[in-house]
């Protein structure tokens, strides 16, 4: 899955959506930004700084955090520990060999869990969570790193309708109360148009259009290639 000629700009405090048919290269784009993949050419800038080719943990240190499309958490650990690891890492405590983790940063972890509404399930095993809760935990782990810029890869994929609503609420909340800059991709057009400030449309690895919801909706190319196209997968 290749990405070429993709061009994306996100302003501080914005919620930006990336949409496009399956295989358009959305996840690849995120992987390029977060350092999981290294671009052959092209650059990634964050707050004016070139972060191209940095390894994921360094990208994270700059203040970028992300969630994954397929739930990607620490399966053997409890919900609380999942988030705590992220918080520990954020506070540069991973090289502490002495203090028991159990005594560290419980409050901050607790706060993040309650902010996403998982506080009551904090001692459960990941595998006991519903799919929706796992997706939320996915976001909570990303929040543990206290990012300025949060990337969400299909946050509502596979969720039941009421869970989706909760998730939309959560994302809005994050943007409003924490002032996070959010970049996400999504197949649920309702969600995309309801919360995004701007939208980027991708197809076959390149940027088709970038603009406000209105602009995108009106754009002929988008309508041809995507919204009206047959290859749109309603998942």
């Amino acid at each position: 899955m290749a990405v070429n000629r993709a061009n994306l700009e996100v302003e501080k405090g914005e919620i930006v959506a990336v949409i496009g048919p399956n295989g358009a290269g959305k996840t690849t784009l995120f992987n390029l930004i977060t350092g999981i993949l290294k671009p052959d050419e092209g650059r990634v800038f964050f707050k004016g700084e070139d972060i191209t080719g940095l390894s994921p943990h360094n990208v994270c240190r700059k203040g970028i955090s992300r969630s994954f499309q397929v739930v990607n958490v620490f399966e053997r650990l409890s919900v609380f520990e999942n988030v705590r690891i992220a918080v520990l890492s954020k506070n540069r405590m991973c090289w502490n060999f002495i203090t028991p983790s159990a005594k560290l940063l419980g409050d901050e972890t607790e706060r993040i869990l309650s902010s996403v509404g998982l506080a009551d399930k904090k001692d459960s095993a990941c595998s006991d969570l519903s799919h929706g809760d796992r997706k939320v935990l996915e976001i909570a782990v990303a929040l543990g790193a206290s990012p300025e810029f949060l990337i969400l890869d299909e946050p509502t994929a596979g969720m039941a309708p009421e869970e989706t609503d909760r998730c939309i609420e959560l994302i809005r909340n994050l943007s409003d109360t924490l002032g996070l800059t959010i970049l996400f991709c999504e197949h649920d057009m309702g969600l995309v148009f309801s919360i995004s400030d701007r939208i980027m449309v991708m197809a076959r690895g390149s940027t088709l259009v970038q603009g406000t919801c209105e602009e995108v909706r009106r754009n002929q190319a988008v309508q041809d290639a995507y919204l009206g196209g047959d290859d749109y997968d309603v998942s």
Partner: protein
Amino acid sequence: MRKGTSTRNIGIGIAVVAVFFLLPAFLPRFYVYLISLMLVYGLLATSLNIVLGYGGVFQFHHCVFYGVGAYATALFLTKTGVPFILSFLAGAVAAAVLSFLMGIITVRLSKLYFGMLQISLGSLVWAIVYRWYSFTGGDDGIHGIPVPEIISSYNGSYYFTLAVTLICLFLIYKIIKSPFGSALQGIRDNPVRSGMIGINVKRHLLVALVIAGFFGGVAGSLFVVVDKTVFPDMLFWTLSLEVFIMCLIGGWFSFFGPMVGAAIVIALRTFVSGYTVYWALVYGIVMVFVIFFLPNGILGFLEQRAKPADEKKLIEKG
């Protein structure tokens, strides 16, 4: 509630230690020796488990560090006049250094590739030990290594082994429970995600490998104290697999699992072989049963049964 259990745990811990300290008073010499041996292998298996059970690393050739630790101590004791305690530490340090050097090369690789590259590198070390007659004694090994009088008797070496093992277990436990250990477990469960929350996965693993190598080296040096002998088989890959099996049988997601596994394997091989020459068969069948019915090992199984239902799932996972 937490406070209550922790004081109880401390109480149990003290009781266990007391029992171990009193054992030589009423156990025949052979059992004292056997328990020393179990402690040595237990420490070896626990040190492997730092990276295996908690780090998810396919450390296929952990015994290289054990053997190098033992050889370093043995060589210092036989060829130099360095005080015992320094010779002892030299083993652990040599193992840690080797672990670091091998780690730099292997840590880039994942899973099976990591394991096999480690076996190749380890086999090179083994070949050197096996071949360098003038220095390492070749395949005959070094025997009758002089150990200070006070710890060379069965009881003496037992107490020394017990003390060192307890200290090491305590340290390993601290490390596992520290943020470093938490991050390590995060890496085990999900290396990509760990990188994405700001953990430097490779460096973290490298440090974990060095720690595991260090304690493996301590186990090797302890073996010298207990048996006063070293030989190249200590670095051969078959022994590494056996230590692997100790972790598995005991349960590699339980802290004391490898310890229990080591005790069981040593007991099996000591006592079954008294009855039959086909004890590899017995051993193999026991392993097949454990793999089939107790995928989390014996201790893992017991813990699972002891835990309340909602926590069970956590253990069953994976």
